[in-house]
């Protein structure tokens, strides 16, 4: 007996609903064979039509090298390019104003300041945050841009120059240059002398755990360091010599760190952004960094 034949014998009309059963029965429980609702069939047909049309119109089928193109020629990358172009069109008027305004006047104009801070913040997060941190809070060797200690100057012009040409960035001939000699590595000073200078620097900064320096330390400082860092240790932003006098230490204020800095010399490197970022973005970035709080 075929399955159909078997079922046929059991198919009946359910009295309660008026719907035929499938003929399947499990311990007295039967299954209704309710026909598909029309709206469901139409919706299903519509999704099939939609899906087929979508596959023809848009890129859909993965092939060995790429995918089917779709008759519309739509491309997600082209859509992004278009979106960016649209955004630039929307922003163009305010960006043109930022470009034309003297940099010192932007902070005086609430509209330009707000726009420059917005553009600058995004540029900062995309390009600068990797080293300086998302809030420009800095890290060991990477200056905090919120504070009032500036290695290369904290005026708008200074900040702009640093961003444009970078620091110790050899590919840019106008880069901020200023190399501290490697006093230890190049044998200019002996380890003992370096230790004395380090002690002297730490007393100069009035660090709480500074040891009373050997008199030799002061003499060595005057001969080797004062030219750039100044005899009072106030530093010189023109050559990127940081202040040794204040409470902010880029690498740390403990003695081993200072000894290490004197040994190795040199300094941090920052890329030049001119050419990679356009003039207006650099201007906005400058205003953003300046307005963080430390700008002079």
């Amino acid at each position, binding site marked *: 007996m075929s399955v159909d034949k078997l079922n046929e014998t059991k198919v009946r009309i359910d009295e309660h609903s008026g719907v035929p059963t499938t003929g399947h029965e499990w311990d007295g429980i039967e299954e209704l064979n309710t026909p598909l609702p029309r709206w469901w069939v139409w919706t299903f047909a519509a999704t099939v039509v939609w899906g087929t049309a979508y596959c023809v119109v848009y890129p859909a089928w993965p092939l060995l090298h790429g995918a089917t193109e779709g008759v519309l020629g739509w491309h997600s990358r082209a859509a992004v390019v278009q979106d960016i172009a649209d955004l630039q069109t929307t922003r163009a008027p305010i960006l043109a104003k930022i470009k034309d305004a003297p940099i010192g006047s932007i902070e005086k104009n609430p509209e330009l300041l*707000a726009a420059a801070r917005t553009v600058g913040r995004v540029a900062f997060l995309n390009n600068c945050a990797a080293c300086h941190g998302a809030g420009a809070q800095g890290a060991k060797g990477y200056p905090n841009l919120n504070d009032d200690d500036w290695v290369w100057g904290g005026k708008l012009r200074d900040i702009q120059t640093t961003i444009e040409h970078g620091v110790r960035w050899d590919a840019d001939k106008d880069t901020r240059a200023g190399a501290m000699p490697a006093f230890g590595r190049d044998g200019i000073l002996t380890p003992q002398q370096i230790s004395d200078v380090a002690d002297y620097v730490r007393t100069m900064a009035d660090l709480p755990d500074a040891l009373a320096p050997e008199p030799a330390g002061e003499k060595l400082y005057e001969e080797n360091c004062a030219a750039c860092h100044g005899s009072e240790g106030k530093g010189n932003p023109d050559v990127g010599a940081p202040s040794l006098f204040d409470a902010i230490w880029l690498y740390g204020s403990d003695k081993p760190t200072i000894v290490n800095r004197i040994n190795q010399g040199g300094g941090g490197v920052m890329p030049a952004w001119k050419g990679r970022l356009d003039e207006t973005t650099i201007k906005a970035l400058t205003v953003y960094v300046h307005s963080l709080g430390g700008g002079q």
Partner: protein
Amino acid sequence: MSTSEFAPESGEYEPLVAPAHKVYPKKVDGEFRRIKWGIQLLTLAIYYLLPFVRWHRGANEPTQAVLLDLPHRRFYFFFIEIWPQEVYYITGLLIIAALTLFLMNAVAGRIWCGYMCPQTVWTDLYLMTERWIEGDARDRIRKDAGPWTAQKIREKSAKYLLWLLIAWWTGGAWVLYFADAPTLVHNLVTFAPGSGEAYMWIGIFTFTTFVFAGVMREGVCLHMCPWPRIQAALTDEYALNVTYRFDRGEPRESFKHATALRAKGLPAGDCVDCGQCVAVCPTGVDIRQGASLGCIQCGLCIDACDSVMEKVGRAPRLIAYDTEMNIKARSCGQPAVYKPIRVRTVFYAVLILAIGGFMIYTLATRDNLHLNVLHDRNPLTVRLSDGGVRNAYTIRISNMKPETRRFALDIAGAQGAQVEVVGADKDAQGRFIVEVGADQTREARVLLTMHGVHADKAPLAVDFTAHEIDTDKSISSRDVFLWP
């Protein structure tokens, strides 16, 4: 909708797909039909004309009474202007709408479905058009079953064209709520550049209107709408519903038979089984089978039945707004009970009034000035070269008035701190002045610096206050000054 039609003919295989089920509602006149026409006219007039109503708010403000200004994130409703942060007013409105539905349901069932729901209003409009061109139900059934003639093609095309025009006008009116209506109409008519998006939305709403009101009709109520299910759970024994009074109607007899029975002094029901109640039903329900999920309670069967009762000389309202409880009471010789005022309805009404009253109160007394202070999170504090500490804050002043206002900032609580506001100038008294444009929010960066070395490491409470210069109005917000 009877389910017996699903049953297969004997000896045939059962169909895979349910058979076509098309409702041809017949024309009817009467009290409830007139109420429906009135509400339909009113609701459609509001929908189509409201965007053109003007409301003067002052210079630089839109003059449209009801406007959803998405690009500027503002919602205007006559004298009310809502900003994005006040979206809770919309929540309140939705809660009131839900409670109103509950109240309607507790008093007289699905008033919303039968008279006011857009699905009902537009389906009614489409049915009216259909009837006007193709004739009443009987003609439409005959024509649909008949062959395609030149007249049928002509009528069908005219009907679909008119439906399409109504749908297009409906979509057109929708977009007018999102932009200045007269300007947008002008742009749409002249194909001005930049109106492509409006055309797209008109297209979408034209399509949905046509499909919902023309093709799906009662299918939306039966298969898509959640309200029938919800209201079934909310109803109680006192809620009035469109009800067939089976105590009066049964046993059904033909008019002749019933007259003969009554002549002999034997009982006969008032229902003459004419089927008019089913014929006029827009969802194809037989109300005599009892309460049904498919019944939208529009009352058209009441009108149909009343006209028949009048002809056969029996009392009207064999079908009426009534309760099953009353039918049972009457059949036991007890009086019917109508209790529109009961705990449930009073509770809903009180809730609606309370929430509505609270919203009106907050709207009337709400501030048109807001101050927000955000402490920098990264870094929380900045160590300065002299050993001092700086905290930075972003403050936002929202001016909800249609005019420019100037504020003097006052910062109290951080004794001895140096205050700076990036980009703001000081007045003669040394206060920082911040100007906020009409209907705008201005952001400013405030820096508080404590110079020198401080022993106290407990956070300081700092009060930021913006004083309006021309008035004595001020607003405050509290934040903290933190130490490293």
